[in-house]
């Protein structure tokens, strides 16, 4: 029983990490209607940025979050402006190829610059564990959970309460109607992609102390993020959050009870089943076949 509870705790902590990555993916898909296959590589770029800031200037990852979020926002803006925007009316497969190509280019760029070695940020304070009775949690994980909750609530409030948020929602629901209402749709897309990428910037700062940066770290996380987003119904922030929690739990439990190297098989199986039988997501919050 104690093992089980510890596994639950681990699962929720893992889930909060997936949640932060997935929220950005959901935002981009929900508004721009483009599946960003390069999302994981944005995380990778962010993690190297955090590492470099730490190495060169000794900046703590949590403080590095600020510049890295801004950096990622700008990268997102550039991607949307110069790659996605020109392809908005192109065939779907061309959009897929464009982000897949970007992903391939970024992974290999990192391989050229940093090689295949692992780079870890040494932040012992974040890796210290707190003990609650016989259960233990890393401080970094608690920060992650708090950040995930704050991010989802904050983004939701932003979408509901601000003019910009309302314009983003209007664009997501009907691009043409929003255009007719005077919303500068192209700019909304640029901002949304930037915001989605900025979420990944936050994620990279929080993940860096816990996971080493490698060229393929993004591929590892993004496949999971896709599972989460599909599970959560593609468009819904809260859906993504709960989807992430479920995948975190599945990850933690199946690694222990089935086999460590088969946990991905379990959630890819869930992914395939959801896509095929319940494309609106587990909570019926989206429309996956659109």
């Amino acid at each position: 029983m104690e093992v089980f509870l510890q596994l639950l705790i681990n699962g929720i902590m893992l889930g909060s990490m997936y949640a932060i990555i997935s929220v950005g993916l959901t935002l981009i898909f929900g508004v721009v209607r483009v599946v960003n296959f390069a999302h994981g590589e944005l995380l990778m770029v962010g993690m190297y940025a955090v590492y470099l800031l730490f190495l060169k200037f000794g900046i703590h990852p949590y403080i590095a979050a600020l510049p890295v979020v801004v950096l990622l926002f700008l990268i997102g803006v550039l991607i949307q402006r110069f790659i996605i925007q020109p392809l908005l009316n192109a065939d779907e497969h061309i959009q897929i190829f464009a982000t897949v190509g970007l992903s391939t280019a970024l992974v290999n760029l990192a391989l050229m610059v940093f090689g295949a070695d692992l780079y870890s940020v040494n932040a012992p304070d974040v890796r210290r564990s707190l003990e609650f009775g016989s259960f233990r949690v890393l401080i970094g994980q608690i920060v992650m959970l708090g950040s995930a909750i704050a991010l989802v609530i904050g983004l939701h409030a932003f979408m509901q309460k601000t003019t910009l948020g309302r314009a983003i929602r209007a664009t997501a629901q009907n691009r043409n109607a929003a255009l007719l209402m005077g919303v500068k749709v192209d700019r909304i897309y640029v901002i949304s992609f930037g915001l989605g990428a900025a979420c990944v910037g936050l994620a990279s700062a929080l993940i860096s102390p816990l996971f080493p940066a490698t060229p393929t770290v993004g591929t590892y996380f993004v496949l999971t993020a896709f599972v989460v987003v599909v599970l959560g119904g593609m468009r819904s922030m809260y859906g993504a959050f709960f989807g992430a929690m479920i995948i975190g739990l599945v990850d933690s439990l199946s690694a222990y009870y089935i086999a460590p190297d088969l946990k991905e098989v379990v959630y890819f199986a869930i992914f395939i089943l959801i896509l095929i039988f319940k494309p609106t997501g587990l909570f019926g919050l989206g429309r996956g076949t659109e």
Partner: protein
Amino acid sequence: MTQHTVTATPATSPLRLIAQITRPQVYVSLLALSLILLIPLGSGSPFLIHVFVTICVFAALSTAWNIVGGFAGQLSLGHMMFYGIGAYTTALLIQHFSLTPWIGMWIGAILAALVGVVIGYPSFRLRGPFFSLSTIAFLEVIRLLAIHFNGFTGGSAGLIVPLKIGWAWMVFSDKANYLYIAFGLLLVTIAVSLIISKSRLGYYLIAVREREEAALAAGIDNTKVKLQAVIISAMLTAFVGSFHAMYLTFLEPATMFSLGTSIEVAMFSLIGGLGTVAGPLLGTVLVVPLAELARGWLGASANGLHGFVYGTVLVLITLTLPAGLVGTFGPMVGRLVDKLPGGGRRPEERAAPALRKLEGPKGEPILVTKDLVMKFGGLTATEDVSITLRRAEILGIIGPNGAGKTTLFNLISGFLKPTSGTVAVVGPKGAMISPTTPDGFARAGVGRTFQIVQPFGRLTVLENIMIGAFLRHPGVQDARAVALRVAQTVGLFDVKDVEARNLPIGGLKRLEVARTLASEPEILLLDEVMAGQNQKDTMGMVELIRSIRDTGVTVIAIEHNMHAIMSLSDRIVVIDSGRVIAEGDPNEVVRNRKVIEAYLGEDYVDAQGL
């Protein structure tokens, strides 16, 4: 419409096939292909032989991928699963049963085809990026399973192919032998791709890719043709995998089921031109040598360089040449090649096969609906509609906007399944049958047009009509002849070589009729085909519908052009709020009080004192 007689001409006698070689397109292609063999053999350099074996392997993989990813438009990013299955099956069969790879590769191919069907069947309902994601997920699952069951596959540590040298074991000390086999595989793959592109299957795949609904209406079983594409593609990919395993002599899950390689294979097709026969080969020839040379010269320091170049090229191509090299420059090069000796020949025109004879006595019930009800949530769009269509009549359906006319059409063509009630049509043997799918209805002889036109945008007008014609004429030449005849009848002959997406709305409406007509239906459902036509074309359309009926076809037409529908119809059914409110002779129907109420409101009826 005049009846044409069939002239029997054997399409592919051996002599004709050999005569083809005098065509410049054929001899230029063969010469270009032979360079792949001659350059490395002429140089005798082992490195060049290796580069060209790699080119053959990737060109064959990309050509096989293109059958699913290009022709059928299903962007698989997990295609290496078929390659890996072929490779592992062959290697394991040698290891455990000393089975020669020449047989093992067939078992691997069959296994790959089975996996393709099992994965494709559920995944094909997914659209665009979600299909791609599911193929990635399947690839990952297979890769992880291959690592997990290490007792069987050797796991991450890998598997070494038993080294028995000789043709029987496909392992050689003279590397040139590998080149012969790789080149042979490439030729087979390209031949299969070429045959598909020139056959009904090729046209059907493009139709499904462009518009699933219109493809169904043309009688195409969408899932079936996509599965056919997957089976062919998976088998070819597995063959290449089997060979490549023997060439590499070492298998590990990370390279056999690689996502990166799956993307590369798709990328070569995009660069060369998706959905073209020569594109995948051209893309591979242009990109692979660069990467291999970089690897050869720079060694390990080039780690990541080729991938970076691949990715960048991929992004640039999507932004500048989305149709790929062959798609963009192919037609131009084709015209140049045609100027060479032996060129400039046009395919001989062939007489269209005879129209299908429609049998059965005039006036017999040909389509019967019984108590049809269609509910969308709380809304009842169709309520207790029972109508009987009689052979060779023209039945007009009128009613105010939102009355449920198009819903009724969708019910009697299989695009909607009724909440309750039945639809039956006369089957081939005269008995009433009830098909369950749109393509089933089309095959039973119910042809429909769409109110919102559904052209196959990237096909020419003639090819659009051919998609319809294929239903009764599987041969490409026959279908083309039928389509030409129909284009003439409907008034699209002058624009037959225009891409459908460039037609104005009036032309698109006629194209809807043409495509449906080409499928030689017994019952023709016309949904507002007069809309968007000028006065003269409307008169032409009325004449056309009459002449179609005179060939024995039964017509149901939804129409808002009252003048046209009244003069055309033998009988009128009026629908309002999903119910039939009047039925009968056109002249009686227009005087019916309920009908006037439905169109103009009760007040009008009262004020006129009707």
